[in-house]
């Protein structure tokens, strides 16, 4: 069952255009949203979250259109950006005390569990955290209200290989709990390691949206790795 449906998103800026972006996010699956810098990943994610307004297209979660069901949908999704932190000089504990009141699904046991798992100190402020720990802090908030779908914008950017690997393992464990994970990245090995599905965007246009296996079988030439495929596809788009 699809947790999210994105249909025909279009957004025109003076120097960039998102063209007819469509894909879906399946329940209990990890979807890697890949594309080079400036390809439209963040614009797409912001459109999904109603932070920017597409010129046309529809976004729905859990079968409900975002428009008119914003509050209910946001209670069931978790969002994180890799490097941005909110209220950098407030203690995590104080931020949580405010945020948890917005969620009737807030689970203090889950909060404690992920606090331990991520080895976060709730008396620290985001400004005192490394980039990797900031990602974990955002994830902590998202997971403590039992989000059914996680939308993560470049969560592995700026992380060291160990933290990246650790984070990808967390994604896999969440997937087994039925959580849909949708994360954008430009690091192909992240996709190779844990994604079930791939949504590949280039110059504002979806080039492919399928399972990873289908993607490889459809686009691979003579035993290429996923990275080789991506680089070749990106070059062919540039040369077109």
């Amino acid at each position, binding site marked *: 069952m699809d947790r999210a449906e994105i249909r025909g998103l279009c957004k025109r800026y003076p120097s960039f255009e998102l063209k007819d972006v469509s894909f879906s996010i399946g329940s209990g699956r990890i979807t890697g949203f890949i594309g080079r810098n400036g390809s439209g990943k963040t614009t797409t994610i912001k459109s999904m979250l*109603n932070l920017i307004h597409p010129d046309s297209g529809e976004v729905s979660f859990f079968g409900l259109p975002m428009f008119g069901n914003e509050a*209910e949908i946001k209670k069931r999704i978790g969002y994180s950006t890799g490097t941005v932190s*909110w209220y950098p000089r407030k203690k995590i504990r104080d931020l949580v*005390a*405010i945020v948890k009141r917005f969620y009737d699904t807030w689970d203090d046991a889950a909060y404690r569990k992920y606090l331990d798992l991520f080895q976060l100190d709730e008396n620290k402020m985001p400004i005192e955290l490394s980039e990797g720990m900031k990602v974990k802090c955002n994830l902590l908030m998202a997971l403590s209200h039992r989000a059914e779908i996680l939308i993560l914008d470049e969560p592995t950017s700026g992380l060291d290989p160990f933290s990246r690997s650790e984070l990808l393992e967390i994604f896999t464990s969440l997937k087994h709990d039925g959580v849909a994970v949708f994360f954008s990245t430009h690091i192909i090995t992240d996709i190779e390691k844990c994604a079930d599905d791939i949504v590949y965007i280039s110059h504002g246009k979806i080039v492919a949206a399928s399972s990873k296996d289908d993607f490889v079988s459809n686009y691979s030439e003579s035993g290429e790795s996923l990275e080789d495929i991506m680089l070749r596809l990106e070059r062919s788009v540039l040369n077109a």
Partner: protein
Amino acid sequence: MLNILRKEAGLSASALSYIFIAFGLMFLLPGYPILCGVFFVTLGLFQSFQKAREANDTVFSALLPIAKKDVVKGRYLFVCLIELCSLLIMAITVIIRMTLLRDAVPYTHNALMNANFFALGVAFFIFGIFNSVFVGGFYKTAYKFARPFVTYIIIAFVMVGVAEALHYIPGLEIVNAFGTDHLGFQLGALAVGMALYLLLTILSLRSSCRNFEKLDL
């Protein structure tokens, strides 16, 4: 709505917004343009806007499980709460000056505006201008606040100057009434000030909700 107000008061608000409520006590100062107290209260509120912007509050709030327009309503609610707290102080001060301190020499020999219900009505009006010009102007972008704040400062000080000068115009001496003199006029002026405050705030809130809904964050 209570949750977003709690977020505004606990996370977004600068301590100065609370401390500057005390500038309502400037209504006690003789020989001083007392309406400047209103400006200082709004200066404290401006600090909260600045602090919230530095903390990426707009996107943080927009991602909370509430409708986008509720983010704006929460901020207006907080602003009005601070303003009403300072207006309460000003009102108490006005009543003290109109009754207990009615004959106090520093107030009877006051060249500037007296603290009366007319002054309180003008205070309401200036807060309404703040909500309309500054808060409404801020939500056109949810980012830029220099131009709306400078515009507000100019209008607010022109208003203070006009209010201070009014009682020197022949026939308008009653705006500077002492104690309970011309009480009917004074209460009428207060009611007009309150109505303008409500009108400006509600119109500004509506337009800010519309603008914020259209913004790309």
